[in-house]
């Protein structure tokens, strides 16, 4: 049965309208980043770019710690992702492929820990960090959350589909237990690692509350915390802010467009945790 033409046309019209609304903020970010500050919210408003200037980008790079913040974000994201992947694969392997006393209870603890929101921890955790001398350090941001329960759950679920014969064969060949993890399990986990990498990287890239609390020195801010100071600044530096936004969003969108499938599964996998 072919539906009536009019209903197809209407559906497409609605979808186009929705897409325009969803994409518009990107467009606005982009053209505002090329407007001189005096024209960003003048009346009458330029809805289409009239002047084109790179001065916002130049100011951003030369007069603000933007590049430093970018580095901090990349460093925090990379460190967190690597650590979290290591702990998740190791523990996921432990849970999936060994039979040991207390396994089920411990697994339930891992799963239950996913319920706990950061908000209920943030105050005592901050006090703990002060005592450890970890305020204003990268490890203070990264380490408290490096053992990710969802990651463990995800890996152990994934490994249940992998036959255990391979592991036994490895043992017979004289592999150590860690050798089995490194030589047999990690290569098998490649697809799952792709998904988890995106999930961990996107999560830590977007962190806000925790680094806001831990990082007190401007030079240690990750991007989100740094850029939020542009907003609360009395001058509301939209010129630099829009240029910065473009420089943050473009690489991620480019990555997304080149590997949409992995991104979608990485990001959707993440919300299953709650």
């Amino acid at each position, binding site marked *: 049965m072919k539906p009536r033409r009019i209903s197809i046309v209407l559906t497409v019209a609605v*979808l186009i309208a929705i897409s325009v609304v969803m994409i518009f903020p990107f467009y*606005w970010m982009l053209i505002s980043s090329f407007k001189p500050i005096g024209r960003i919210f003048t009346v009458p*408003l330029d*809805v289409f770019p009239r002047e084109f200037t790179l001065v916002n980008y130049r100011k951003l790079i030369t007069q603000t710690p933007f590049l430093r913040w970018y580095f901090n974000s990349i460093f925090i994201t990379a460190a967190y992702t690597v650590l979290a992947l290591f702990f998740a694969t190791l523990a996921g392997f432990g849970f999936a492929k*060994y039979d040991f006393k207390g396994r089920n209870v411990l697994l339930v603890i891992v799963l239950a820990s996913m*319920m706990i929101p950061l908000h*209920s921890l943030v105050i005592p955790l901050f006090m703990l960090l002060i005592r450890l001398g970890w305020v204003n350090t990268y490890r203070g941001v990264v380490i408290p959350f490096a053992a990710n329960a969802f990651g463990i759950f995800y890996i152990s679920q994934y490994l249940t589909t992998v036959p255990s014969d391979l592991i036994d064969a490895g043992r017979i060949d004289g592999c*150590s237990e860690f050798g089995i993890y490194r030589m047999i399990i990690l290569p098998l986990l490649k697809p799952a690692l792709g998904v988890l990498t995106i999930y961990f990287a996107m999560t830590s890239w977007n962190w806000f509350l925790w680094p806001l609390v831990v990082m007190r020195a401007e030079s240690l801010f990750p991007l989100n915390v740094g850029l939020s100071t542009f907003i609360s600044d009395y001058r509301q530096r939209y010129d630099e802010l*829009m240029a910065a936004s473009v420089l943050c969003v473009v690489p991620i969108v480019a990555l997304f467009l080149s590997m949409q499938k992995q991104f979608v599964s990485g990001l959707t996998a993440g919300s299953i945790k709650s």
Partner: protein
Amino acid sequence: MVGKRHILTKKTAPYVFISPFFILFAIFMVYPIIYSVVLSFHDVKQLSQLNFIGLGNYKLLFDTPRFYRALYNTTYYAAGMCLLNVILGFLIGLMLTWKHVPGTSFYRASVFLPVLVSTVIAGAVFRLILVDTEGGFLNYLIGRFGVPPQNWLDSPRWALKSVLALGFWRSLGLSTVYFIGGFQSLPDDLYEAAHIDGASPMQQLRYLTIPLMRPIIAFVSIVTLIQAYLVFTEVFVLNPTGGSARDTVVTLGYYLYESAFRFFKLGYGAAIGVVMTLIIVVLSIIQLKLLGVFQNE
């Protein structure tokens, strides 16, 4: 190889492999949770000076109008996020899986793109669009239809709705993806049978699609609800300096941050944290119950 001894045997290895998680879990989760309950019964003067005040913080909390405002705002936000994500995610997912629509991958990508933007950056652009003069795009747009400029970010009428708009813009893509997944796994033959029996498209939607999609609807609503109850960054970005209409956007997460890290009332903040945790745990238990639906069917 014979005789080579490894410290890790088949017996000890699993404990070693899972130990990093449990060590970090004990230090950075179990201990803080217990300590946060302890803190909530104390007045914290200096970091090391705790004065036991029993239920004092909770009494104060339940006597403070701002707390009720925060509870109301958070619930409003969470309910709004839930309804918008379920209804629009469902409808857009339905349209995007309709096989007669051309070019769905383009629409799909454009609905998903905002998911990639961090809340701070999304908030920055939203602030610019929502500027309260005609120099803001939204006011410029409604001005074209003769509507006077509105104070989107700070007025009691709009401030919270703006926060909701920001949260929704960033979350719609994910919800839609879940619904798309659900629609794609619906069995075709049931629809053919329904069609042969003369069921109209609306009847098919009402009696087939919605009941079959119930697990996804339950999943999206509860996941959205739980995450929305923790809302903090959206509020922080849209109203960072404490405007005149502050009470209109304060949420539990924001109230906690403000009490603890702006006014340094750590015990009081911990009490808010305990209340939030209770809400989240209750919602999570409901979630587990609801998702049991998945296993039974």
